[in-house]
């Protein structure tokens, strides 16, 4: 079964600096999707970035980018020029792209990293 591990329960960063959140996963599949979600204090889950495993190019969304290392099964999130509004819980998630309908439905979630941004 697939698993997702976020080894940093808490992180902090100074405003305007860069921080990297780590995520590793375990799978025997070759085709899958990876996601980073942000959950601010309001607790709404917001998609930050999405990566398709068959694409070698790392996904980017404005100040957010990922370092996707497929062989190492690593999917870290880099936040550049951190802002106070980036303070949130960040979750990494995995979804199979296989044809098995049951596997497709489930996202496998990490336990999250709580990010504090210091002014």
């Amino acid at each position, binding site marked *: 079964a697939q698993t997702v591990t976020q080894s940093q329960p808490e992180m902090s960063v100074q405003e305007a600096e860069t921080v990297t959140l780590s995520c590793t996963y375990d799978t025997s599949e070759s085709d899958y999707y990876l996601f980073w979600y942000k959950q601010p204090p309001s*607790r*709404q889950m917001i998609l930050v970035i999405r990566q398709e495993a068959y694409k070698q190019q790392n996904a980017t969304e404005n100040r957010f980018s990922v370092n996707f290392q497929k062989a190492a099964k690593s999917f870290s999130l880099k936040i550049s020029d951190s802002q106070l509004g980036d303070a949130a819980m960040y979750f990494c998630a995995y979804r199979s792209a296989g044809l098995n309908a049951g596997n497709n439905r*489930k996202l496998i979630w990490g336990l999250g990293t709580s990010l504090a941004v210091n002014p």
Partner: protein
Amino acid sequence: SQTIHQWPATLVQPVGSPLSLECTVEGTSNPNLYWYRQAAGRGLQLLFYSVGIGQISSEVPQNLSASRPQDRQFILSSKKLLLSDSGFYLCAWDRDRGSPLHFGNGTRLTVT
């Protein structure tokens, strides 16, 4: 554009009382629908998902149930709440396995 509505935002219910949480999606048809629960300081646990009207898959056996009476409506229910049902409940939808989940604003349920 698509939107997802979930209500109520907050709910306090006594043990043994019934529960009904509702979620509706606008701007799309035949979405996949999901109910998640998040305990304080923990990750997300998938409770139910639905790929169509009347089609419900349960991930975790418990005293909760789900129904999908209409294409874009998903309801989470319980006949008798337990203390352990307290938590934050999130409804979500997506189109297919490659698309991201889109979440509602959540319901904070406290069972007293």
